[in-house]
């Protein structure tokens, strides 16, 4: 049986890691647990559950900065921001339905550890672009702070960026400061129907490169769309007057590409939440799901390459640069085919698969030797004895 350690604050966390270091006890670091099934299964002797480190420490809307403890539920955080008409612009996904972890609670710590960024990534950046500073307990059992609580700062290395997307393998975050930005007053979506993947991505990249300030650019092929037709979706956000002006311009721009229709605010929110949360693949929990990141124009080529060799379904976000792909979960879940099709200029992560597949396959993109060696040295700089989430990102790190 694995022990569960539940620190209530940063000091407890430090003490827990210190104890683990002294006794060479490997720890699985979790908060709400909603993304626990992503990554290689770790072999650990104890669980360090930081969900007790919860709550908003400081929120100053005029400074555009919010500081919270890692276990703060996203719902609580989003509500506090909404009250001041702000939001986390990187639009992190809620992966519970996809991963079958509906009883778990997504937290700020988990979102940052996973660098989760939604459709607005193309306009406002990823989670890593919005993390300003943090406090940590490293695998060396030391309390460290990095970054700050101001929006502009280049003092010292940006360890906070390194921690964002490190899946708990370098240090335990005990406090996080993020940028809070004004939430859009209005949202609309322009949808063009019936395009092939290639035509859709060409339209998406052209529109994103226009002056329409598109904040979401996705394509749902007919096979994955509940409505049964291919839909190419472009989101506009901002003050109402501006959205109206840009919508008219965008409608004129897409004319001739296919039948266009408009979604209002309410419908738009539902659509983009579904795109963000990978709802098209939530239904069949038996399939494996890949997250593929490539240059936007390369998305359709990668998907076609995969589809030629194995059965799969896919849809596109980030104007083609983010592909969500479902494959059969047996064997290697398509790993070899997927990675061959992606090639060296992109990467693929196996976001959902049975534990046995995740144990046998590289979940994260394997790296060339020099880079893998560098990543290992970075891991050692923070966690020399491999105490924190050992093996989660790579078998040997």
């Amino acid at each position, binding site marked *: 049986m694995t022990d569960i350690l539940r620190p209530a604050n940063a000091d407890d966390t430090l003490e827990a890691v210190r104890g683990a270091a002294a006794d060479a006890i490997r720890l699985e670091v979790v908060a709400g647990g909603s993304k626990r099934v992503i990554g290689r299964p770790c072999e650990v002797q104890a669980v360090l559950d930081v969900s007790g480190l919860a709550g908003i420490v400081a929120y100053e809307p005029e400074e555009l900065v919010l500081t919270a403890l890692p276990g703060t539920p996203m719902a609580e955080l989003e509500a506090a921001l909404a009250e001041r008409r702000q939001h986390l612009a990187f639009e992190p996904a809620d992966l519970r339905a996809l991963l079958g972890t509906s009883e778990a609670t997504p937290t700020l710590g988990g979102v940052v550890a996973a660098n989760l960024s939604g459709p607005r990534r193309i306009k406002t950046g990823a989670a890593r*672009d919005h993390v300003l500073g943090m406090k940590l307990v490293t695998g060396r059992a030391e309390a460290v702070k990095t970054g700050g609580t101001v929006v*502009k700062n280049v*003092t010292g290395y940006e360890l906070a960026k390194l921690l964002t*997307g490190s899946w708990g393998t370098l240090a335990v975050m005990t406090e996080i400061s993020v940028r809070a930005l004004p939430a859009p007053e209005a949202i609309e979506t322009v949808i063009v129907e019936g395009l092939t993947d290639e035509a859709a991505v060409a339209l998406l990249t052209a529109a994103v490169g226009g002056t329409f300030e598109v904040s979401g650019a996705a394509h749902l092929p007919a096979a994955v769309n509940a409505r049964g037709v291919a839909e190419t979706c472009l989101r506009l956000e901002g003050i109402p007057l501006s959205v109206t002006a840009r919508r008219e311009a965008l409608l004129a721009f897409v004319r001739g590409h296919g039948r266009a229709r408009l979604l209002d605010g309410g419908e738009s929110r539902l659509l983009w939440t579904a795109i963000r949360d990978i709802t098209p693949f939530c239904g069949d929990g038996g399939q494996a799901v890949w997250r593929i*990141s*490539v240059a936007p124009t390369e998305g359709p080529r990668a998907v076609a390459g995969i589809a030629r060799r194995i059965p799969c379904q896919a849809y596109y976000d980030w104007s083609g*640069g983010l592909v969500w792909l479902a494959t059969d979960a047996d064997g290697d879940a398509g790993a070899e085919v997927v990675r061959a099709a992606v090639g060296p200029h992109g*990467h693929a992560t196996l976001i959902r698969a049975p534990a046995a597949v995740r144990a046998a396959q590289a979940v994260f993109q394997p790296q060339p030797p020099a880079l893998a060696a560098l*990543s290992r040295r970075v891991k050692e700089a923070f966690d020399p004895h491999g105490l924190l989430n050992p093996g989660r990102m790579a078998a040997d790190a």
Partner: protein
Amino acid sequence: MPEPDKATLARRDEIVAAMRAIVPGEGVIVSDAELRAYESDGLTAYRQPPLVVVLPETTEQVSRILSYCHGNGVRVVPRGAGTSLSGGALPLADGILLGMAKFNRILDIDIPNRVVVAQPGVTNMAITQAVEHAGFYYAPDPSSQIACTIGGNVAENSGGVHCLKYGLTTNNVLGLEVVLVDGAVVRLGGKHLDAEGYDLIGVLTGSEGLLGVVTEVSVRILRRPETAKALLIGFAGNEAAGACVADIIGSGIIPAGMEMMDQLATNAAEDFIAAGYPRDAAAILIVELDGPEAEVDALVERVRALALSRQATTIRASADERERLAFWAGRKAAFPAVGRISPDYYVMDGTIPRHHLPAVLARISELSERHRLRVANVFHAGDGNLHPMILYDANAPGELERAEALGAEILKLCVEVGGVLTGEHGVGVEKRDLMPAQFSETDLKQQQRLKCAFDPASLLNPGKVFPTLHRCAELGRMHIHGGRMPHPELPRF
């Protein structure tokens, strides 16, 4: 700086010969007169000619140079255009100065993917110029943009007046090719929007040449907004100006740029280029709004109303592009303008939480009196990044020292109110010894462990950023004091 290594100095001829074998022709510079051109960067108070200057042209040459240095324990200082204001490119007497100026080609312009791939010696401005024809630009715009290189921008994580809305360099870099100190070449990211594995682009950006030599950069380019308009707003006091900045952001507007200048800076600018600034205002704000025409017009009115409610003494909105540029001209010329009213000036770069602005300004003016040196203030007000300019005369005995002492006090003040030592210029040699004001010994040691992961013998740009150099072996040791794993029978935290 670290003591020059006598053995290395004695081996100069041998090192030069090795460099000549790697970089043929004029790419290896040894004459005293020519070395002097490289003896300092934008922080001219510090000077040191390097052992030798090497100007490679290919990644392969950089790799061979570094692997030679790695094998022979020779130190290396990378350099772009040498405009760093923190002494980041200050040479070492026993070190090779690795000039990246010949890496001056744009390799790929990819409009559909909104990416430009450039060599590191390409200037910031040249990237925008390369994509202007298609209506695009590269957003981070340091005032030095016609001279500074994209490699230097990456190393310093440079900003500009538009970074409140569009981010610093780090938010606009998608890929890097980097040569590690042992000569290994790694490629990070590319044209896709998120790099795999640990965010090494995130730590390399802003690493001030201490982690690796950047040999290729992929940046995100943006479509030029349909319109941009600026407001010029004057206030009778700093408090009102500061409050107006907070009001604008609090009301949900993120301007493309929001700059503040105090009376001394305003008048210096006015004397220099007659931008039309109100000379009697205690502080002026320049607020730029960009985007679709309808939106910009609406926001201009919102900002105007907010300014009125803070008793602005002047409010002018640019009627056309000429006037918008005129509003900016004074701000952009602020440094040279101040240069005209003082033999020398020293630019600071702290960031503070914005609501402390009036209090910090009041303290700066007290400090200025105490040190008997004038201070002109310009800020990136939107993000709380201050650029106090300390006016001094290097020829007057003791003034440089007083200017530095005053500067250090201003930066400590920034940290005291919850801010940081540098918002965009970097630590370099300049703020190195102030790092303990912001970071504990443990914090700094962890940063150095990251340095060790990249450069265990500390050959890349040593003497910058960190006040104390620890040996990597010593940093690697792990001491666990007390704290055994709590017994299972005891209650958990």
